[in-house]
């Protein structure tokens, strides 16, 4: 049983804020899903934010950094996975999906148009990257289904 892989995000005065890539991945995935749903105008997200009085979060100046942070956290987590397993699939899926999600929001910020047919597949790929990681995590190296 090996110790969980840990990375230091920030240290100061002897007190370290540590996070596992897996936890970062979960936060990144959740943040990305919420941000993309907000960007694409999902009624549930819009209603939730309105009820909380936080609809201003949907403005591009807030949503874009949030989305970028979510994608970055997710990619960091999957990069860590890739280093350990050598399986490029989740990382490639997340790269393409994350780029699609970011571009969707950038297009919205620049043109006030919704690139639905980029946002939906992008979000699907980003989620699929994490699902793939979960499915393939417990497979031994060289498992035929892992290829």
């Amino acid at each position: 049983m090996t110790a969980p892989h840990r990375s230091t995000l920030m240290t100061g005065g002897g007190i370290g804020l540590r996070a596992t890539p897996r936890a970062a991945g979960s936060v990144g995935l959740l943040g990305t899903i919420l941000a993309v749903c907000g960007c694409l105008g999902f009624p549930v997200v819009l209603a939730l934010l309105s009820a909380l009085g936080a609809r201003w979060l949907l403005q591009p100046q807030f949503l874009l950094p949030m989305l970028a942070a979510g994608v970055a956290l997710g990619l960091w987590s999957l990069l860590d996975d890739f280093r350990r397993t050598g399986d490029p699939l989740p990382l490639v899926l997340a790269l393409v999906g994350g780029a699609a999600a970011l571009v969707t929001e950038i297009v919205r910020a620049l043109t006030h148009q919704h690139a639905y047919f980029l946002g939906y597949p992008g979000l699907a790929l980003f989620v699929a990257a994490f699902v793939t990681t979960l499915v393939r995590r417990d497979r031994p190296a060289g498992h035929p289904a892992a290829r």
Partner: protein
Amino acid sequence: MSRTETALTLVALVAAAITPNVFVTGGLHLAPTPAVARYVLLPAVLVQFAVLVYARRIGCHRLVNRLVVGAWVGLVATTGLDVVRQPGTFLGYLPHDEARMAGEMILGGGHHGAASAHGVGPAPAGTAHGQGEPRAGGPSGQDQPPPRGHDGAVGGAAGHGVAGAARPEHGKAVDGHVEQRGGAADTRARAGEHAAPAGPEVAAGAGSAPGQQDTAQGGHRGGGSASVPHGGSAHRQAGVADVIGYAFHYWNGASFAVIYALLFGRTPWWGPLLYAVLFIESGMVVFMRAAMPPLTPGIVVVSLLAHVVYGLVLGVLFSHFLREEGPIVQRVIRPMLQEVSP
């Protein structure tokens, strides 16, 4: 490779090659796209699935691997391609949203107006031949680009056989502002554009200000008398064209990937990159030059970048998930190289 596997591979190759050629034949007006889609494309898709099922049944694992991996990797790579292509369309570097254009072509001329009105980027200019294929600048010279509302939204439609077909356009209020779908700049579309001052639909379409309208309005070209789909109808037709067009777009990307997988199988990562740039991109440039002139540097650069991304994604995933080299490499290229080398 058994004779059966070779035969199945050839059948799958031909079936996969049909998809991109539907767009080519439609764009060049060689055949009516709705009929080609119905009587050639759909059977070809079914044949591909049939080959997959049969190959799995008789144990052609290599062929199954190529078909399955080719398809899903192609879908992923097409999303990568769209990461470049769609901003190019929205920001005006590409005059057409090819996916939507394909949907309009497949649905036929009657859907052009509605589809384009809903769309991203300028719609294809009309055609004068009545097949419903989008083609810039029809022979009549009247088939000019879409009229543009004051709010910058470019609606657009290919004329249904005659200049003067109506085209609706609309702004859709979203989050307090008008969502100007179809608002990408289109230098070609701007030249010579005009909206005829006729009919209530035109008045609504041409004079709308942001935030003041929420449904489709019409715009006429050349004083035509074709009917304008109203409100919800236009939206529905546009949605159908979008869905069909993007389904075709993704299937097209998957088909190109399947073709590569069947021909070459597993190769280094740069193999699909060369394929995407030298074969797909150059073919597309030639096609666009013939079917949708003028070809601007912006179109070429955006299209090239999009296909580089497509090729890179294909390369990385193919080099990992395809199991063996393809028959072309095994039977043709390698023996040739062995003969040449001392």
